[in-house]
């Protein structure tokens, strides 16, 4: 039983990102069949996955979710949230599920909720590794069991299949752990029989909400997928989609703008055409999806790389600024000597990064600019196996950061510390370590779905 067209409403690029409420009303008026929104990303770094902490605060998420749940209930259409809690960890899914339950109770809404968990046990993955079922993605090499065992959290990125299964199981609200950005928007049109080329391509275009429009801050978008392609328009009547704004979104955060791997296959938009239907609506045709011979699930994992302490001062003296690189090199060298003498640590026991903000902190040796800056902030970042050691090293650095002269100065300068105490403990630091895929026989086998009774039935 195929429909002729399915309309996907994407309110914002990230749950908690906010949107004008009238854009949701407009989407319902236009006949939205499903609301899909992404709740996470790796883009803000490994901390959120590694620590299972959301990047957003509860009030932001609650505001968005309340509006979306009410809209879904009013229109009797499903709501799908992907990568819950930023990293898509089990704690992230539970956090969004708890907020959802509170809203459903407070608003008296009767919706069936499914939670899909995507966290992976290292021991189970070690067995799959031993069986030869885990492969690296470029630029990474082969994986060893120790790397899997060292992760604080590992998630698998689900495709559309577990989401579709939850919808077929009766869920009106699907709260998914880590999912591909595209799977969240593609799941419902695929389930309703839309062809995979347009469904996946549309899902990629809408995954960042209004990013594919001429005014990304104006709100989200509506994609209408049919048997031959899809059309896309902004939910805000004042914004536009143009062939250039839509085509350009394939470039955003993609290493390859034409081909993108999903668990079930590869989206190929090489032959896609983008045509203006009117001044704010674009028609896309020619998108393809190549099913893969082997279904794969991408893994993401983060581990603690150490504990960090930061110290920060500022220099305005033109004499030091004229010799700032020499000064920083001297700081690094003397710090190493003092740490060896007082803390009895070798350079291999800890790591230090000295960043000269205002000089070349962002691009370092690749910075094309020359000439002394007007002022420079000196950030010392220390990483050690434990917090106390990291802070001890930063404290040893303190008199140097305060008073170190350049080689030709006959007096001790004093730099401008903005804070007392000078040191800020950053806690555990995380790093991403997995860039690998697992071969699976069944695209749902790594994921666990729990159906939660709607509050009204409880």
């Amino acid at each position, binding site marked *: 039983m195929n429909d002729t067209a399915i309309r996907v409403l994407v309110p914002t690029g990230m749950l908690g990102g906010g949107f004008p409420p009238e854009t949701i009303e407009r989407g319902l008026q236009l006949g939205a069949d499903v609301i899909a929104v992404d709740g996470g990303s790796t883009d803000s770094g490994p901390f959120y996955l590694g620590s299972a902490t959301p990047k957003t605060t509860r009030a932001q998420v609650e505001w968005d979710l309340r509006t979306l749940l009410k809209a879904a209930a009013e229109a009797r259409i499903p709501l799908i949230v992907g990568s819950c809690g930023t990293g898509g960890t089990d704690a992230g899914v539970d956090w969004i599920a708890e907020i959802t339950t509170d809203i459903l109770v407070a608003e008296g809404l009767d919706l069936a909720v499914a939670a899909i968990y995507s966290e992976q046990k290292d021991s189970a993955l070690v067995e799959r590794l031993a069986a030869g079922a885990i492969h690296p993605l470029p*630029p990474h090499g082969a994986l060893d069991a120790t790397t899997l065992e060292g992760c604080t959290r590992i998630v698998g990125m689900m495709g559309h299949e577990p989401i579709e299964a939850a919808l077929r199981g009766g869920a009106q609200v699907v709260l998914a752990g880590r999912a591909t950005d595209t799977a969240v928007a593609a799941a419902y049109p695929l389930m309703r029989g839309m062809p995979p080329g347009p469904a996946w391509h549309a899902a990629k275009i809408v995954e960042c909400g209004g990013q594919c429009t001429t005014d990304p801050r104006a709100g989200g978008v509506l994609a209408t997928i049919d048997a031959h392609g899809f059309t896309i328009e902004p939910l805000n009547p004042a914004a536009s989609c143009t062939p250039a704004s839509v*085509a350009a979104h394939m470039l955003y955060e993609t290493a390859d703008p034409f081909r993108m791997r999903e668990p079930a296959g590869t989206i190929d938009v090489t032959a896609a055409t983008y045509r203006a239907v009117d001044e704010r609506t674009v028609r896309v045709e020619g998108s393809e999806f190549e099913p893969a011979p082997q279904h794969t699930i991408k893994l993401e994992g983060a581990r603690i790389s150490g504990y960090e302490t930061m110290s920060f001062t500022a220099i305005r003296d033109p004499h030091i600024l004229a010799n700032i690189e020499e000064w920083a090199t001297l700081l690094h060298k003397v710090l190493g000597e003092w740490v060896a003498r007082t803390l009895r640590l070798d350079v291999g026991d800890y790591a230090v990064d000295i960043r000269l903000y205002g000089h070349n902190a962002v691009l370092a040796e690749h910075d094309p600019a020359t000439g002394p800056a007007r002022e420079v902030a000196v950030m010392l970042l220390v990483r050690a196996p434990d917090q106390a050691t990291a802070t001890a090293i930063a404290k040893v650095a303190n008199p140097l950061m305060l008073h170190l002269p350049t080689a030709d100065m006959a007096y001790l300068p004093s730099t401008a510390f903005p804070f007392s105490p000078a040191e800020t403990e950053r806690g555990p630091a995380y*790093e991403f370590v997995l860039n690998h895929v697992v071969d699976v026989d069944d695209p749902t086998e790594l994921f666990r779905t729990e159906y939660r009774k709607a509050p009204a039935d409880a």
Partner: protein
Amino acid sequence: MPETLGELALEVRSKNAGPFWTTMELFMRDEAGYAAAADEDVLNEEVVARLYGVPAEQVRIFRIPDLNVVKISFPRPVPQGGLRDRDVHSGQHHVPLALLVPPAADARGSGGTD
């Protein structure tokens, strides 16, 4: 004054493409600007390798005339969020590319007529 690629562009931007890749795009103003940025003698894998200190064989360049866009991707030299990562989102890494000065159109071997 010779113009930089950034001055010939509507926008030059950079961003992560996942935790292990950096990607950047030059959205050129017009076909002449595109011809300058897409010229393989001006901007190629070796030039990107020199600008960013990455191996040339890992640099991927996509030239997209329909959009007047040149897109460049390479593995992140520093893992995202690591001790030495000074740009978690890779949001400011477009600058060396934007400051590249292409030779004037008449001095280039191909394209660039307007």
